[in-house]
């Protein structure tokens, strides 16, 4: 039942996207495909179930347990393979299930597709229940629509659906990336357990080295369509032979967190107080998003604000920025209390850098125009654009470019430059690196740290990822359900969390296994 891939290559309209690649996955073993955006890892995965986008073709050979995959075959050839021999699990459980069908039906379809006939009602219920039990979901989940389940539960349903007709190979394409940190480990462990139980071969695709560590046997590191490194997971991570792998490992916040690497100066500068938030309250309808939140940020300090989605951290940032109106409490800058809303604020008080670099720049304006506009509001001359670009590490010729011509990291640099243009006292980074590849992430983090050191700017750094925060923040505030549950020096909080929730977060951030590892060979 071994999976053998030999000389698999993917050609697209723009040329060869994946250079010939060979690999073997034993039953019950996991092969990790690691790479950043554009490395070709997803194309590789899709080529193994015949789902390449139009215009892309795969060559080479692949077999699963002796069954050759029809790499160049048509839809009908693939249908016999998909689900029964190889199955694909997608990244986002929010979109990979049909929103208007019940979960049980979606699982049953896989079975019906394999048998080619409709199941009787009772038989169907029994099959679905068994599959749900395998992913540790109660039978009643079959009656639920996807939106009625949490992200983690949805991904479990998706796993059950993907495995319902007992394939020998499961290709999991970033299966946990879209999930909250606390869910990620759970799903990975579940996958691992099922895999061991079924002696299933798994190809796990990820940009995240933390996911790979401890859960995979072999690893392939890909870059721009080439395999740059391969080997036993543990040995590759411990001693990378290719510089790119080394850089990836170094840039990975999890690795960095475990190794204790930090971008902050050893001793935080004792700066004057810039922002003071006191007893902030905010509700959306009856839902209380912020409950008596207080914090201070000083000049030259990076305050990490950590919490999962829904913890209120973004709302906090938006209240400080004036993009939301708080219901109660005070926000003061340099000792001056600000009324809620933008009207009472000036651009030089605070600026914000958003998460998504793709939508935070006006697509119709050139980089130069965007920055010049930001300079103008602060009374600065447009000629300072070049200097601004230099500050964020971009060459001067970027002035003429439009956002569409830039990569994600470059865009985020432009966004930071724009935020810096009015010389704000406070920079708010709302998940500003979460959407970036790890290597880019590290660059941006270094940039922010450098800015803090050079400009002495105060930074509120909001992230769901403790590992990232750990790399850059001086002090940390942990939020949960709209409340601050823990605060303190970054190092202290992360090494010795006192609150139960913080402990959970820390564990998740380090991608630690929460379940006992069974049957590892």
């Amino acid at each position, binding site marked *: 039942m071994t999976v053998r891939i030999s000389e698999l290559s993917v050609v697209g309209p723009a040329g060869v996207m994946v250079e010939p690649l060979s690999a073997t996955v034993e039953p019950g073993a996991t092969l990790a495909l690691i790479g950043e955006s*554009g490395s070709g890892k997803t194309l590789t995965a899709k080529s193994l179930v015949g789902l390449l986008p139009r215009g892309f073709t795969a060559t080479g050979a692949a077999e699963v347990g002796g069954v050759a995959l029809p790499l160049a075959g048509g839809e009908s050839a693939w249908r016999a393979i998909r689900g029964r021999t190889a199955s694909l699990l997608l990244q986002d459980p929010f979109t990979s299930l049909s929103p208007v069908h019940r979960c049980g039906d979606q699982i049953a379809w896989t079975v019906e597709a394999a048998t080619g006939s409709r199941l009787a009602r009772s038989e169907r219920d029994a099959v679905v229940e068994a599959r749900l039990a395998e992913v540790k979901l109660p039978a009643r989940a079959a009656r639920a629509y996807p939106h009625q389940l949490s992200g983690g539960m949805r991904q479990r349903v998706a796993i059950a659906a993907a495995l319902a007709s007992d394939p020998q190979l499961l290709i999991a394409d970033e299966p946990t990336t879209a999930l909250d940190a606390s869910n990620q480990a759970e799903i990975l462990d579940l996958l691992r357990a099922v895999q061991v139980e079924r002696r299933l071969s798994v190809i796990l695709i990820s940009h995240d080295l933390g996911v790979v560590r401890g859960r995979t046997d072999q690893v392939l590191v890909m870059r721009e369509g080439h395999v740059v490194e391969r080997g036993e997971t543990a040995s590759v991570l411990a001693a990378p032979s290719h510089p790119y792998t080394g850089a990836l490992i170094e840039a990975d916040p999890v690795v960095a967190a475990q190794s204790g690497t930090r971008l902050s100066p050893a001793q935080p500068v004792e700066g004057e107080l810039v922002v003071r938030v006191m007893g902030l309250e905010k509700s959306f309808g009856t839902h209380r998003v912020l409950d008596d939140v207080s914090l201070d940020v000083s000049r030259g300090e990076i305050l990490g604000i950590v919490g999962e989605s829904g913890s209120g951290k973004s709302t906090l940032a938006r209240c400080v920025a004036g993009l939301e109106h708080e219901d109660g409490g005070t926000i003061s800058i340099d000792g001056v209390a600000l009324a809620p809303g933008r009207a009472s604020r000036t651009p030089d008080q605070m600026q914000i850098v958003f998460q998504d670099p793709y939508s*935070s*720049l006006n697509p119709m*304006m050139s980089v130069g125009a965007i920055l010049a*506009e930001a300079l103008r*509001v602060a009374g600065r001359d447009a000629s300072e654009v070049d200097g601004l670009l230099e500050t964020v590490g971009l060459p001067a010729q970027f002035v003429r470019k*439009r956002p569409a011509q830039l990569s994600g990291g470059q865009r985020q640099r432009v966004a930071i430059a724009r935020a810096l243009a009015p010389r704000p006292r406070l920079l708010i980074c709302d998940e500003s690196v*979460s959407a970036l590849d790890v290597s880019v992430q590290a660059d941006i983090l270094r940039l922010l740290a450098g800015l803090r050191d050079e400009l002495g700017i105060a930074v509120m750094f909001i992230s769901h990822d403790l590992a990232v925060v750990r790399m850059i923040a001086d002090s940390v505030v942990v939020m949960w359900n709209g409340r601050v549950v823990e605060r303190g020096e970054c190092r202290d909080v992360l090494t010795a969390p006192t609150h139960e929730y913080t402990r959970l977060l820390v564990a998740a951030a380090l991608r630690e296994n929460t379940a006992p590892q069974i049957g590892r060979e």
Partner: protein
Amino acid sequence: MTQPLGASSLTTSPQPPALRGPSARRPRRRRPVLVALALLVLGIAFGAAAFGSLIFPDAMTQDILASQLPPGSPGHPLGTDELGRDVLQMSVAGARSALLGPVIVALGSMACGVVLGTLAGYQRGWIDFAVSRWTDLLLALPVLLAAIVVSGVFGGGYWVTVVLLIVLFSPSDIRIVRAGVLEQSARPYIEAAQMLSLSRWRVMFRHILPNVTSLVVTNAMLNVAFALVAFSSLSFLGVGVSPGIADWGRQLTDGRAIMFVNPAAVFMPALLIVVVAVAANLVGDWIGQRLSRVGEDVR
């Protein structure tokens, strides 16, 4: 390591699916030949509208007491109409009236849409409420039906019809622009502009508006086609263009009386209307796809 990695547009980075690159959506690309043909048709039609009166200065004032001739008659390749006027000349001369109205309707409706839609979508509050109720009201009325009632009651006429169609077409423009503005307003770059304390006018018209242009332009192009059809339909019902004006819709309506004597008197203007409307539709779709592809790269 700030260079983009690879040329593939497939991304696996954790973005919401809506932010996917262009390969996620693959609009059918109009075949360039077809679009070129459509552009050519529009070019000729608008050329005729602009200069038709120079080519045939007296198309309308030809001796109107002559007789009807079938196509292929000497001097009248397409024959003459029910008043003895040359169909070819009339078709060229009729372009202006046939196209001017629809173009003005499309532009007028676009202007309404841009101004009201942007205000409603960005300012929200009472303006949004008022504008939305207004569009609700108008959308509860089928365009053609409302046009019949109003034109019929007030005696029709060209400019009455133009104004009427602007009013009746504008709700869809307003809605489209409003929805686009709403969508754009929620994007971080607008909040970034707010962080710079830019005036709301600057935010609305410098930042948001250029980003909904593709919607606006596409819809305007499609409106030209719809207005062309609406004009001719109203003329058919006797409430659109008055007689005495060279106009395809009017020609089509009047020419039906002599269908068997000179079929060209009917089919020529009908063909022109359909061909121009098809061309406008194709070009509208094409512009929409091109502009939205530009947009997709950046989204």
